[in-house]
């Protein structure tokens, strides 16, 4: 993975001392909260319902053991012993004191972590395929490009006061694990007819109050021209994006109002005027960055591990874990392991300090020193030898991280909701917990198969409910928590915004309604169909009827 050199480290040190200076001025009363707010937001520090929340950037979701251990240390020293992994692959601490924030950032800087651009109307943390460097599906390592974007976008002088926040995702596989089409810019690496590497550039996706699926404005951008093209897109957006209404300020609104074709034309016109020599990264720097992501040294191993097969035969729990959480690796004899932070009854995305340390140890010992965070709020060990899987499973079990429910009904995305967030209308976490408990029987969950439930506590859609196979949106009705259900959404390569099922239902009825929806699927499904496939074939009617039957 990318290693910070002296320049990167000095940059972070300067950032920490700048923020320490600003906090000192605030604590001394030299600046007001109003003046301080934009400064703290540029450092990921939000004022929430109960305390300050600090959001730490995890560039393209990649962590090394030292970083995970440092996060665990911060959780113990300054928070309540845990942290929350987000859908942006970041980590949030929800119980922070303002006076501690500079020390926390200084401590994180020791392991090259920071909170730069985790809030504010700037280019946010760039995400990439969590299986990068491990999956056989990819054309190139998307982290190379995510790192290029990280450096380019860091304190970008022209694009730090955009109309609204701006999110970029990079994928290099046909199967999209980044939800690229729900990003302001989604980049998918493709080979052109001549074999040259390029990007399909998708613009104007986004969730929030008005969900949009991104439109392709360029089928094949030569890879080396990425930064100048991004500059052109950002420039068109910075000049013409709406600034009069923050709910209409995302680039998706500009793209929708101009039409993708006209937006693309303006981008191309701007791009034609940018000098490639000054805007694109020199090949030497690209090669330097690429060098950090050179394929790890994999041993030549047999495709089947006798040791694993024996353990699997003896332990049904391991067999189940392998079925649901372990995926093929590009190197023979290796596997990719999903660690679901979705133990039924727990808060989705939460990890305790002890769990972080266990994952750090496992990454160090069994996964070439790497762990990943996914936008579905799970962790990944990308490079595990088949022989080592039983040991990894045992170690995860010991800290409550062996839930074999990746991609199943209890692998639910939920925002922090009204339990933490000042914007929320309703709670998200208890709803997730209740559903996960209802479907805790793993045989039932496996029979249901892939089913992505996503829950947001308000229309800002941090829980990505629009792209859940089943989406759940919290709304406030005269002080009571109600939930609106949507069906048929997807954030993957077949991206689609879900359709509203019907009137919002009371909190007490949500889990029963999910039960009804699942029952319709089990009744209607044809062989090989996932929930989403059945819904797409039958349409919404039978599902609607089941949930609202008793009302009629």
């Amino acid at each position: 993975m990318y290693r910070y050199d002296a320049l990167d480290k000095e940059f972070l040190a300067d950032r920490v001392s700048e923020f320490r200076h600003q906090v000192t001025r605030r604590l001394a009363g030299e600046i007001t909260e109003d003046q301080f707010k934009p400064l703290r937001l540029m450092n990921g520090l939000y004022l929430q319902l109960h305390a300050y929340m600090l959001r730490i950037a995890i560039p393209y979701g990649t962590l090394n053991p030292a970083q995970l251990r440092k996060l665990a240390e911060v959780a113990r020293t300054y928070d309540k012993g845990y942290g929350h992994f987000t859908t942006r692959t970041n980590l949030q601490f929800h119980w922070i004191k303002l006076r501690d924030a500079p020390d926390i950032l200084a401590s994180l800087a020791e392991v090259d972590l920071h909170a730069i651009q985790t809030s504010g109307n700037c280019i946010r943390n760039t995400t990439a395929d969590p299986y990068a460097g491990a999956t056989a599906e990819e054309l190139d390592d998307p982290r190379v490009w995510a790192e290029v974007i990280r450096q380019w976008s860091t304190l970008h002088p022209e694009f730090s006061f955009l109309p609204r926040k701006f999110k970029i995702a990079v994928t290099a596989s046909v199967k999209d694990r980044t939800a690229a089409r729900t990003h302001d810019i989604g980049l998918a690496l493709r080979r052109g007819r001549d074999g040259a590497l390029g990007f399909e550039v998708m613009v104007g996706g986004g969730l929030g109050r008005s969900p949009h699926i991104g439109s392709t404005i360029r089928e094949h951008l030569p890879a080396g021209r990425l930064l100048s093209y991004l500059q052109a897109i950002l420039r068109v957006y910075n000049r013409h994006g709406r600034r009069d209404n923050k709910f209409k300020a995302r680039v998706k609104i500009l793209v929708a109002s101009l039409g993708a074709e006209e937006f693309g034309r303006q981008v191309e016109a701007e791009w034609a005027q940018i000098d490639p020599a000054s805007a694109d990264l020199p090949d030497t720097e690209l090669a330097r960055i690429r060098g950090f992501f050179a394929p790890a040294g994999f041993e030549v191993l047999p495709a089947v591990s006798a040791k694993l097969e024996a353990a699997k035969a003896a332990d049904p729990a391991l067999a189940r874990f392998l079925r649901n959480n372990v995926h093929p690796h590009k190197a023979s004899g290796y596997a990719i392991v999903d660690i679901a932070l979705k133990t039924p009854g727990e808060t989705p995305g939460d990890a305790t300090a002890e769990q972080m340390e266990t994952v750090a140890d496992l990454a160090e010992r069994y996964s070439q020193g790497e762990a990943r965070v996914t936008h579905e709020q799970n962790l990944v060990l990308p490079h595990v030898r088949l022989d080592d899987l039983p040991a990894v499973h045992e170690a995860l079990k010991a800290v409550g991280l062996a839930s074999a429910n990746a991609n199943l009904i209890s692998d639910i995305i939920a925002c922090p909701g009204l339990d933490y967030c000042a914007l929320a209308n309703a709670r998200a976490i208890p709803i997730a917990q209740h559903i996960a408990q209802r479907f805790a029987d793993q045989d039932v969950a496996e029979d249901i198969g892939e089913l992505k439930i996503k829950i947001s506590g308000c229309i800002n859609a941090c829980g990505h409910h629009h792209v859940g196979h089943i989406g759940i949106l919290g709304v406030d009705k005269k002080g009571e928590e109600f939930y609106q259900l949507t069906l048929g959404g997807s954030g993957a390569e077949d991206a689609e915004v879900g359709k509203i099922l019907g009137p919002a239902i009371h909190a007490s009825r949500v889990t029963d309604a999910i039960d009804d929806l699942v029952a319709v699927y089990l009744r209607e499904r044809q062989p090989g169909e996932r929930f989403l496939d059945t819904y797409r074939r039958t349409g919404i009617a039978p599902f609607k009827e089941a949930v609202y039957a008793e009302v009629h």
Partner: protein
Amino acid sequence: MPKYIRLAAEGAAWADDRFTAVPDEESLPPGDVIVSLKRFLAEGDALQAEGREVGVRIAASEEIEDLAYDLPRLPVVTVVCPKFSDGRAYTTASLLRERYGYKGEVRAVGDVLREQAGFMVRCGFDAFEPADGSTPEQWTQATRRFRHVYQRAADHRPPAFEERQAQDKAAEAAEVKSHAV
């Protein structure tokens, strides 16, 4: 004479403002003036013919392209930031410097705060009328806060990747030298 902050190689300092910024609804005083883009397009030639120096004020919503042809004869362009969070001024300044090679003064007016100093200087602003009562010393300090930058911009500071290349070359040269000895 009113003062504003002017950036120079040795740092920021107060400078006398010989220009009078004239709102559209007011009639023109004698001497050097800064007028709106609209007024400049209507009256600019006549004003310059009177022998005065004329600068132009660009609103956030106006396009610098409309002024491109006239830039060589303008001593100053002021760019209005209606709110500190409105980032259009940064693109305007970047285009002035990088696309049009404008050599005159680019002055930030409006909701201009010292916290923006680093970004503004990088985009090519070299003059400021701060709204927060900040001093040239504070602006100098703010622009020197970061030892490194990550991208090329109008200020021509070498970005991190160029610094790295320079370091590598220096290391190579040192090695060649040590072998020669």
